[in-house]
């Protein structure tokens, strides 16, 4: 029996005690494999794994498993994302078997944005199970070798199980307990929502550490560099569960014309440095939205290169 649950690069990096650095890649809105390979190329060598989003914001894109396979072929380690919005438990379990068969070893389990936000708001949603139950499904399949109906699996899939946590959504007091619940359900690692309010995140982490959650699960702090003041305002007002302090918007504005993006990157790098020192934080998940080409520079300047070979 392997000492690892799944043996993914991400799991090995974390288990070896390295500060993990993961990236994100949104599949193309079409079959544009060249664009996908180009995005992947920017991330190669800079991150330990790449989270491949699953019809994010309920907009139709190349399926996350297919894009994950392309990344694998390109020599990157995908973190295959799955949402509960578009699949029932039959499709969920068969996709889990399928991705594992093709060499995928990490999976991020999410409920998914409601389709009302997306480009097919007329669609019917599924939500047969929720993200908590999805986490537990992957764990049950891996550790017990059973399907949700209790039947044995002929060669169980072994995946490193990821979950998301939003420390900023309300009710704030319950968020750390929900994180605990996800860990209890089977999460091996957790990516947080993009962090901008550092005070609130410090408080959240303190509570998580007090509960010993960092000893049961690897917590990756979510970082998304702000590209513009408009983006910061949009995140503050339009994205549910996102908290952007006015002081940050002020700081970006203060950078002056043509220098806002640089200020955004500076803030992100400061955050990464603080997370490296923060008790309980095992790594950073960098979500450079449609900014994959800036990831090498951010990684370089944050001092997280070269990535460890485990």
């Amino acid at each position, binding site marked *: 029996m392997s000492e690892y649950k799944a043996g993914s690069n991400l799991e090995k990096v974390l288990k070896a005690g390295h500060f993990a650095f993961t990236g994100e890649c949104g599949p193309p809105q079409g079959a544009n494999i060249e664009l996908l390979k180009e995005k992947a190329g920017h991330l190669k060598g800079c991150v330990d794994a790449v989270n491949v989003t699953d019809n994010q914001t309920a907009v139709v894109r190349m399926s996350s498993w297919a894009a994950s396979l392309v990344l694998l072929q390109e020599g990157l380690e995908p973190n295959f994302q799955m949402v509960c919005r578009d699949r029932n438990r039959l499709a969920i379990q068969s996709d889990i078997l399928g991705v594992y068969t093709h060499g995928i070893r990490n999976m991020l389990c999410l*409920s998914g*944005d*409601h389709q009302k936000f997306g480009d097919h708001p007329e669609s019917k949603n599924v939500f*047969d199970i929720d993200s*908590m139950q999805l986490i537990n499904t992957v764990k049950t399949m891996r550790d017990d070798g059973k399907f949700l109906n209790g039947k044995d699996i002929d060669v169980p899939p072994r995946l490193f199980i990821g979950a998301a946590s939003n420390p900023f*959504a309300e009710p704030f007091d319950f968020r750390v307990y929900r994180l605990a619940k996800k860990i*209890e359900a089977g999460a091996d690692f957790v990516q947080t*929502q993009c962090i901008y309010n550092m005070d609130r995140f410090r408080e959240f982490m303190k509570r998580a550490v007090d509960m010993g959650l960092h000893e049961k699960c690897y917590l990756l702090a979510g970082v998304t560099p702000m590209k513009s003041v408009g983006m910061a305002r949009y995140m503050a007002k339009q994205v549910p*569960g996102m908290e952007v302090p006015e002081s940050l918007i002020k700081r970006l504005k203060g950078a002056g014309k043509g220098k806002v993006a640089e200020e955004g990157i500076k803030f992100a790098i400061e955050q990464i440095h603080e997370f490296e020192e923060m008790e309980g934080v095992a790594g950073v998940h960098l979500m450079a939205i449609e900014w994959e080409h800036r990831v090498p520079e951010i990684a370089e300047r944050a001092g997280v290169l070269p990535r460890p070979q485990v």
Partner: protein
Amino acid sequence: MIVAEPKPIKELLEMVQDFNKILVIGCKGCVTVCNVGGLKEVGILASTLKIARKKDGREIEVGEHVLERQCDPEYIDEVKDIIDDYDAVISLACGVGPQFLSERYPSARIFPGVNTKFMGGAVEHGVWSERCAGCGQCVIHYFGGLCPIARCSKSLMNGPCGGSSHGKCEISDDVDCIWDIIVRKMMAQGRLDELVKFRPPKSWTTARDGGPRKMVREELVI
């Protein structure tokens, strides 16, 4: 109760444009309570149809009738002697009514006059809100007496999701995040231990997913 809303008059006029003798049938059940298909609304619709068609120069005859309930065969029978006098019927009951009429009177042309919305109740005058999804296996006692199946946009059994913001759901500021209410209520009751308990996947066999539903209670079958 079952909550419904009137279909737009334009849609109704298009539905019955080929007919000149129409019977509007109301219901004294839920649709009377939510002011959409009772005696008063039957009268208003009849008048509106007549006025609209008169304007078009194509006058019609509209009959009015209100049944005790349209979800009960014995009351549906009540119109057996008059229904053949009309070319078409508009039922102002929930989706059950026009179907009971269609089944009982195979040769009649039956049209729905309302859009059936949900099972819920009036939260204030003129405002109704959904409460039940009819999943067939009630579990609200796990959630502070509130239903996340019907009232969470994602039917989460282990909420709230990360989209909860200021007590509102991510889909709209008009929708309360039921999980916000559940969490606050249960924490205030000192029931955090129940809240952190993992709720396993629900069996949807008793819901619509299990196929069209039928209930037989042997002790009541004559």
